[in-house]
């Protein structure tokens, strides 16, 4: 589990290695899922598919017979060289969209997927309106109580 990291300090002092590191992360982020090892792919797919008879379990978690069958189907299809989306389409044709724990992005789920962004946008707009209309003059003056406190503080100091 442990690995030596002695050369790190030298390497990390060069700007080029930072750029390379950033590029490396980027590549990992954008690379298609098929590049993952088959084992990780299988696991990731299991987690995105619902055990259709269970309360709220993915087929990765469930011990139900249906989940076992579904796991077998997914393994077979991956073995046959199908892509993730082909496997999902196959399962949706059989079981309906209910099987996808991650809903597709389509017109009937647009509101669902866009909700966070819309809400965030709405609150940011509200905020901008508030600050542009009112914060022109920030009230930095002290109120009576603060004035009093300041005086007593100054007195103690001297």
């Amino acid at each position, binding site marked *: 589990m442990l690995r030596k990291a002695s050369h790190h300090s030298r390497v990390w002092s060069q700007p080029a290695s930072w750029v390379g590191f950033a590029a490396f992360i980027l590549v990992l982020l954008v690379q298609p899922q098929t590049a993952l090892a088959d084992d990780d792919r299988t696991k990731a797919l299991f987690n995105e598919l619902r055990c259709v008879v269970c309360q709220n379990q993915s087929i990765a978690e469930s011990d139900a017979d249906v989940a076992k069958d579904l796991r077998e189907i997914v393994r077979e299809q991956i073995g046959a060289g199908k892509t993730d989306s082909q496997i999902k389409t196959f399962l949706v044709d059989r079981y309906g969209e209910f099987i996808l724990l*991650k809903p597709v992005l389509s017109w009937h*789920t647009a509101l*669902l997927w866009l909700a966070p962004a819309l809400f965030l946008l709405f609150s940011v707009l509200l905020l901008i309106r508030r600050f542009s209309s009112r914060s022109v*003059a920030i009230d930095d003056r002290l109120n009576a109580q603060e004035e009093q406190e300041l005086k007593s503080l100054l007195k*103690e100091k001297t």
Partner: protein
Amino acid sequence: MTVELGHMALILAFALAIAQSILPVLGAARGDSRLMATGDVSSVGICLFIGISFAALVWAYAASDFSVVNVWQNSHSLKPMLFKITGTWGNHEGSMLLWVLILAVFAAAVSVFGKSLPEKLRANVQGVQGWMLATFLLFILLTSNPFLRQVAPMEGQDLNPILQDIGLAIHPPMLYLGYVGFSITFAFAIAALMEGRLDAAWARWVRPWALAAWLFLTAGISMGSYWAYYELGWGGWWFWDPVENASLLPWLSGTALLHSALVMEKRDALKIWTVLLAILTFSLSLLGTFLVRSGVLTSVHTFATDPSRGLFILAILALFVGGALFLFVLRANSLQAGGLFAPVSREGALVLNNILLSTAAATVLVGTLYPVLYEAATSALSPTGEGAKISVGPPFFNLTFGPLMIPLLMAMPLGPLLAWKRGDLLGVAQRLMFVLGAAILAIILAYGFIEGGPILAPLGIGLAVWLILGSLAELWTRANFAKTGLAVGLRRLAGLPKTAWSTAGAHLGVGVMLLGIVMVTAYETETVATLKPGESVQINSYEVRFDGLVPANGSNFTGQGANLAILRNGVEVDRALPSKRFYPARQMPTTEAAINAFGPSHLYISVGDVLQDGSVALRIWWKPWVTLIWLGTIIMVLAGFYSLSDRRLRIGLPQQARKPKKADAHAA
């Protein structure tokens, strides 16, 4: 006889609640002190009667009185006494009675502890609580009466076996204390809107109640999570299950409320927003109750076949939420906006906190309700009446909720260091340089020393370190050890207000929790093996050896356990006995996982199929640092309690004029 007494007491409580709905509010409107004072008496009376009623139901459960339908449906004479008693609230009727009992306890608490509240405000608060008590008591009496009798059958139908657990004994009451605790802040918000008066003093009264509700809710959610972890048998700690989401929603907006109430108390700003949050938080609690209790979540169809309860709660929801929001719209404009502040300031940081938390709450709300609404909409449109079903599961929430939390967590250490009104971001950044350095160091070390796991996981570890050390930064800078030396620094630390400590503690708890989440999500390993007696399997640095099957029976179940030895480097370090149980009364099997702790990490073992030849299928997980998840929440709760013990927050105590701190004067 006892059961009838309980029933009678419930009816009496309802009658008193009707009186409390009318008299104090009428008194407040007329300025009649005697009418207003009735609220003090009636709220204590209601609490007493509901208490008697609840005690009667507990007695019926303890005595296994199967002539009571509710007891017959949910209990069994062979069940252990502890689970007989906790079974009282393991079903719909009993849990609603507990819900309303807690509502009554909080209403009585306002009367007992709120003596120093302005008379009118107190009367209006009591009135609003009276409305809630009356409607929920009516709901219980009409649709969910736990005291109905029948000709006594010989034996009960038993409680769902997965609910027969000590975790369930404490988890729902905690959760309800949180849910219902927000009824007080709601009542205060409505009372303030009715009176049209809202000032910093209001926020000072509201904040301790919000804090109390928040810490019970935090504890309740955390316990629920731990219960699911060990009881459901596959080692998950959060499932984005609709029922869990229902409790997370008020937690998110309640956390926002706690922070905005702080701004209102200290700076007299964000008033309107704070009142809105107080209303929304309890509305989400009510919504959670509706979602869980109406059965609408499991299927729209179960809701449609027996809609009486669901429709009743929906009506209560519409009445209170709709009414409150209507009142809010009418009155919000008449409330004066308070102190001004620059975008970069303590207030600004708390606004950011509020925006991100409420966006997160909105996301969870939409994700939870979308499948239900979608099915309802499509079934209304289709000629067959059959709705289309979609699922919104963990992948959706991880993709949307996660990115909202990251900026929130990154900004968290900055907030407490910023000054009120106008902050100096550069100065704060300078003070956090060491923390940032430590976080970057942690990331580099994680990349260097941990093999495997997702490529972004070390960044998560860095964020956790940033949070943990950053939370302590405020204490550190205020103690100023470098300039003042150890002795003065320590004295200063001791002299800091409790709120500074509890802020640091609560934020530290979040960091600890995050560290646990990142570690277990990224580096968990799992193995499945079928073992004959004597065989073993390797996971992480441990070896699990199967020593044969042993019987594991209880008073109301039969079971089989796998006798396991856990070895490290060939030496036995622990034993485990995961088992499968069968409850004959409900014809239900359950899985009892074995959890062996090694430091903060767990070896989690559950039994699958037992085969004819005596071999057994085992599913084993190595869960690194998983305990930190709950340890973090415990730290958060303790910090909350500590803050609540602050004299300045003590409910009803008159506010002392702030005196300059001795330690500060000394240093100057």
